[in-house]
């Protein structure tokens, strides 16, 4: 049966989600139109109870759109992420087994584990991402941003994605891991190939390419880990190798999975935070003016960017047993998705949520998720975004969009929301 056939089935006919309201037709996370402008349909859903069901590729999926319900889902101990807990014939396992899906590997990553296994692995890498550790990277991140800006010096039109948003996060995470930043083009390609294949579980060509990319990346890390075992350094790979050798704290397979995850997760999302955030900022000339007058607002501006235009649309869990989800009865092993982009605009929590305002007082959002899976790289992402934009605004006395915001090219599909390109018209600051 093809995915198209699946979608014509009535999701609410499944007894595990009986009685739940259908999501409106405009709710389609796989379509570029939805990704470009999801806010109107999400507002309708929040006002229509905030709990809906739709037919995803692999069965019915409940989607939550109100802040309180999304936050409760993320913190709930009655849901799980580890697909190995599903029945052997469950279609959601297909596609996450190593042979089927390039993002998967013999050892699940912390994204696909529950407590206590998740916690053991996360603690091993946590130290590299604490506020203190990330703050120490500040001068180096500024240097990288300046060097990337040097590479486009003299041009009065630049693609922000290609010039800064794409390369900077890869260089930073490569240096943290201790791999050669010169390999970054390769990393980016592996990363994108894997994510793309993950987005289209029905496209066998993409799956094949994704699998090849995963194998290539695995072989690469296998080599680097062997080198670090011989000659450890101060980097994150050496720290993991040390943990591996100190006994049963980390298996070799777990090390490889962790490295793949750190590289991938450190890539696309920060790239998209930068792209989406700058697009929002430049679409509001009054806010740019406020920032020019008060450059110290940049940290707050990044918080508002995270709330207003998050790089991840939502995140999912699976019910461990029959239970009430947001007040509605839902059966066992039902996929439930929390729409983070919707929660961030819930007027119950955020005043005047559709207004982009970098001077807001307390900025609340769920863009880094919540509960034990709260983004490991949150502090790093914030810092990278702030420093990159600071250096950009320092370099150019004038920055304008070279496209109409309504014509921005969004990448479609899956849980991610980001731009293909962000062309800017820039004027270099003179005399300093």
């Amino acid at each position, binding site marked *: 049966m093809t995915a198209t056939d699946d979608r014509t089935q009535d999701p609410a006919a499944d007894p595990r989600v009986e009685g739940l309201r259908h999501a409106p037709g405009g709710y389609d996370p796989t379509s570029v139109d939805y990704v470009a402008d999801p806010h109107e349909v999400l507002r309708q859903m929040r006002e229509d109870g905030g709990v809906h069901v739709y037919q995803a590729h692999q069965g019915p999926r409940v989607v939550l759109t109100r802040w309180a319900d999304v936050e409760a889902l993320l913190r709930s101990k009655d849901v799980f992420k580890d697909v190995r807990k599903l029945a052997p014939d469950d279609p959601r396992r297909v596609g996450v087994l190593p042979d089927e899906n390039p993002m998967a590997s013999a050892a699940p990553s912390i994204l696909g584990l529950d407590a206590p296994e998740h916690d053991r692995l996360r*603690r091993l890498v946590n130290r590299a991402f*604490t*506020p*203190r550790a990330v703050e120490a990277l500040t001068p180096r991140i500024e240097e990288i941003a300046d060097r990337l800006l040097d590479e486009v010096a003299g041009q009065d039109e630049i693609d922000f994605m290609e010039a800064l948003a794409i390369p900077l996060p890869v260089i930073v995470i490569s240096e943290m891991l201790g791999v050669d930043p010169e390999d970054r083009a390769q990393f980016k390609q592996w990363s994108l190939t894997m994510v793309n294949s993950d987005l289209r579980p029905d496209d066998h060509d993409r799956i094949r390419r994704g699998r090849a990319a995963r194998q290539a990346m695995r072989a690469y890390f296998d080599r680097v880990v062997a080198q670090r075992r011989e000659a450890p350094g101060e980097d994150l790979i050496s720290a993991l190798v040390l943990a591996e050798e100190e006994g049963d704290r980390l298996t070799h397979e777990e090390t490889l999975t962790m490295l793949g995850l750190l590289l991938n997760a450190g890539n696309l999302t920060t790239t998209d935070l930068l792209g989406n955030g700058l697009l929002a900022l430049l679409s509001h000339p009054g806010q740019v003016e406020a920032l020019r007058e008060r450059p110290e607002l940049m940290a707050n501006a990044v918080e508002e960017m995270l709330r207003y235009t998050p790089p991840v649309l939502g995140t999912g869990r699976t019910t461990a047993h029959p239970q009430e989800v947001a007040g509605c009865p839902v059966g066992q092993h039902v996929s439930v998705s929390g729409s983070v982009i919707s929660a961030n605009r819930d007027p119950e929590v955020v005043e005047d949520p559709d207004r982009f305002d970098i001077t807001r007082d*307390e900025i609340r959002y769920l863009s880094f998720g919540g509960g034990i899976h709260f983004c490991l790289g949150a502090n790093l992402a914030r810092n990278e975004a702030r420093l990159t934009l600071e250096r950009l605004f320092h370099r150019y006395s004038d920055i304008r969009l070279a496209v109409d915001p309504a014509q921005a090219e969004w990448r479609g599909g899956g849980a991610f929301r980001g731009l293909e390109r962000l062309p800017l018209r820039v004027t270099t600051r003179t005399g300093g």
Partner: protein
Amino acid sequence: MPRLVVDRDTCMSSGQCYMVQPRLLQPDEEDIPVPTAEEFPEEDREALMDAVHACPTGALSIQE
């Protein structure tokens, strides 16, 4: 007067609380936050709530 309680088992060391309210909490050597005072004055209540909200795992609570 309000007291800030940290559930060390629930804490994931994300550092969000002491990033938003460094005056009220500081990390120990395991990167788990420790309140900077036994009790806080009433006028700190809003700042304490900020820290509680910032925690992604709900590891912070206010006790009277």
